[in-house]
């Protein structure tokens, strides 16, 4: 990343939420500061939020059940919301989902702001809904999310398991916005994380200028489906 292209940097605290309209022509880098972070993420077309990240379309267009460099995130309208242009982790989870209040209470016990102040236990679903509500979105807009930095393995019998030690301190992933996307994030623990203690991790993020992809862009040429996805995305802006 060229230093002079960075607009700003900030840290998302453990268990916190964040949202931003990431404009076409910019990129968002997420850095796992301590190792073992989890970033739950949902993406919307900010210009028309009923167009949103679509898990099955992302998976079946690219025949994947993991995300890494070279793959893209599709909306339900056949367009590319963002592309993964850098990745030091190698596996990000698109299927495990997010936690809710019941799961967090059952796993980590009761926790209130009254006693614990800002360290009280947050859960992914409520964190998403609160942040989405700030942009006029509600429960009907909640959709399948991505979990950056977490690996979920699927065995032959279909059983899923949390992949330990997937992300190390300093590992990062970078998303290039192909549309003006509303990004909703939180750093709540992954719902399949076997750690019995509530220990969310902080994530450093930075936003920088990123040129729109050229004809030889690796995400565009990685497979014919993505070439058509970029074509449909570019037509939207003509």
């Amino acid at each position: 990343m060229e230093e002079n292209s960075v607009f700003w940097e900030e840290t998302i605290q453990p268990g916190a939420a964040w949202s931003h309209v990431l404009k076409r022509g910019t990129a968002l880098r997420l850095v796992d500061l301590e190792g073992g972070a989890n970033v739950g993420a949902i993406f919307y077309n900010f210009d028309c939020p009923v167009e949103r990240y679509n898990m099955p379309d992302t998976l079946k267009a690219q025949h994947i059940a993991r995300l890494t460099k070279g793959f893209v995130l599709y909306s339900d309208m056949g367009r590319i919301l963002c592309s993964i242009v850098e990745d030091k982790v190698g596996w990000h989870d698109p299927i495990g989902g997010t936690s809710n209040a019941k799961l967090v209470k059952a796993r980590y016990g009761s926790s209130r702001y009254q006693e614990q102040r800002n360290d009280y236990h947050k859960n992914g679903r409520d964190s998403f809904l609160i942040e989405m509500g700030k942009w006029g979105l509600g429960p009907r807009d909640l959709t399948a999310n991505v979990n950056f930095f977490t690996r979920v393995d699927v065995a032959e019998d279909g059983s899923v398991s949390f992949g330990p030690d997937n992300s190390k301190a300093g590992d990062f992933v970078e998303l290039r916005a192909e549309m003006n996307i509303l990004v909703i994030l939180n750093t709540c623990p992954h719902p399949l994380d076997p750690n019995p203690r509530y220990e969310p991790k902080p994530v450093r993020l930075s936003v920088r200028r990123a040129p729109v992809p050229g004809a030889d862009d690796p995400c565009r040429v990685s497979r014919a489906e993505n070439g058509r996805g970029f074509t449909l995305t570019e037509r939207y802006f003509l």
Partner: protein
Amino acid sequence: MVGLDLVESKLEPTRAVYSQEIPAGEPWIHPLRKGQYFRIVDLHGNQAVDTLFYNEHDYSDRYSAQDTIQQQGNIYLTTGTKLMSTGGTVLLTIVADTCGRHDTLGGACATESNMVRYALEKRHMHACRNSFMKAVIEWDHGMSKRDIVSNINFFMNVPVTREGKLTFEDGISEPGKYVEMRAEIDVLVLISNCPQLNNPCNAYNPTPVQVLIWNVPET
């Protein structure tokens, strides 16, 4: 397929209070009351039945693929699976399954995703998302595209490899195979009987399925 636990139902089709054949390419939307049993029959084999469920009293509380996967620790649906909502509600429980495996990850076909997956000129072809849209418009209860989320594909076989690849395997269903569920709360069922002609999921020949409803289990 080895390792699949096939469970038959004791319910007699002649005792069903509702029975309807859904042609390929048609939607079907229908409420179920708590305690009713609901069966989908793959009449001709390997037909994809794209299905969504909603809490009948709050449509924003709806089937969630990720919550269902998480709750049971498995991507496949079969007997014993609790179909979970985004709000953590158990919508239905699968009580019988003679197919043995159903898909949570492949979602529905759409005219737009067909353009990405196959060719830009495929946009005109009928797709499940259009059937879903038509059904919720005609249902006229204020539902819209916001309510159409990642659905179940009954009778489809979509495995994930150890390397994290999603594969579309030959079907494991056959004519007459069925899956049966008990409604744990009042639910609304939304089905698109898949019209996809661009891949072999239906052997390029989408076919009718049958849905049945029973009021009480027979013994």
